């Protein structure tokens, strides 16, 4: 079963990966992209209680001529110790992603927030601002549509859209597939716009160099307290849309103090992606990656 959406397809089959071109056609990779997942066909059959593991269809006879009466007993069980991390597979893939990125001097930044915090707008302005110094490319994560990818493409940046279907986060396998399609040049900057969600993406390492959590002043100032796991993973918190502070009921001090309670060493920058306030500090932070 697919881990992304719980459908009956092989793992990853519910995820669509689309390279967004500047032309008038699009193509998806539904028919071949993830077909080589893990096809462990579960071939066990009901009634296979007797333990001589014959192949299905192999000629043999039961019940006669054994010469020994067998006592049917409750099957004994044995315990196999695993002692392994549940997310070992994801974390292994993430480590491979990280290794490959570091080797090629590519910095990947994972942007996470609730929907509507301004991630795509932030990216549009950031790409235009830093693009002269360092090529910026984007992996877009959304459940559906190419809307954000089209906006990024309009900046001239190369972009790959990953649609997760019912999935609520990107994982290291999706990151790996996205990077393979994106094919970022050595030394470039890759932004990952994660699925808008302050819960699930927190648990999944993609192999990124840094995790940035964005909260906007049109949300509640109590968000950090409500979603502590997400804020605890942040290398940087961006408080966005500060140009709207005169018009909204948002207690900046409360928000900052809650972030500090959850992650005392969190770096926090206050910005307005649309108006440009504070954005130079964000660009300086990126330049150090």
């Amino acid at each position, binding site marked *: *079963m*697919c*881990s*992304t959406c*719980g459908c009956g397809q092989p*793992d990853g089959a519910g995820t669509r990966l689309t390279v967004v071109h500047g032309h008038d056609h699009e193509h998806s990779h539904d028919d071949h992209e993830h077909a080589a997942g*893990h096809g*462990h066909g*579960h*071939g*066990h059959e009901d009634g296979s209680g007797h333990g001589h593991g014959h192949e299905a269809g192999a000629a043999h006879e039961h019940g006669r001529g054994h010469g020994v009466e067998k006592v049917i007993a409750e*099957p*004994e*069980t*044995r*315990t*196999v*110790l*695993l*002692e*392994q*991390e*549940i*997310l*070992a*597979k*994801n974390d292994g893939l993430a480590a491979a992603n990280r290794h490959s990125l570091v080797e090629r001097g590519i910095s990947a930044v994972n942007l996470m927030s609730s929907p509507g915090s301004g991630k795509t707008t932030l990216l549009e302005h950031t790409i235009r601002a830093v693009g002269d110094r360092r090529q910026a490319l984007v992996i877009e994560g959304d459940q559906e549509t190419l809307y954000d990818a089209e906006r990024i493409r309009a900046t001239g940046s190369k972009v790959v859209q990953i649609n997760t279907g019912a*999935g*609520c*986060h990107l*994982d290291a396998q999706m990151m790996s597939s996205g990077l393979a399609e994106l094919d970022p040049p050595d030394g470039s900057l890759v932004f990952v716009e994660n699925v808008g969600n302050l*819960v*699930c993406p*927190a*648990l*999944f390492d993609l192999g990124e160099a840094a995790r940035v959590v964005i909260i906007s002043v049109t949300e509640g100032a109590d968000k950090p*307290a409500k979603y*502590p*796991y997400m804020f605890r993973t942040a290398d940087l918190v961006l408080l966005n849309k500060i140009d709207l502070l005169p018009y909204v009921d948002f207690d900046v001090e409360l928000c900052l103090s809650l972030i*500090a*309670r*959850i992650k*005392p060493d969190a770096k926090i920058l206050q910005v307005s992606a649309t108006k440009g306030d504070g954005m130079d500090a964000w660009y300086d932070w990126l330049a150090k990656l």
Partner: protein
Amino acid sequence: MHELAIAESVVGAVVDKVGDGAVVAVRVEIGRLSGVVADSLRFCFEVVVNGTGLQDARLDIDEPSGRAYCRTCGDEFELDDPIMLCPCGSADLEVLSGQQLRIISVEVV
């Protein structure tokens, strides 16, 4: 619902280890500070085991408490709340345990 992906990871890891044979029980450790909800995991486990050797398996979940060390007062204490505060008021803590997501063992026929 990241518990679905967690449940799928459990099943995948168990199948990788013991093959497609019948599994009687799986024991996992879900720390109270891990961000994974045990009841949600049980629900998702029932969904994802269909068609695998785990379809009749019991999921045993241990939920160890968290422990933290306070860098301000030097105290070590039990902690189950994701908003981490020392009784002294400091948030400058080092989490010692409670964030683990581990498969401990599998019981097979």
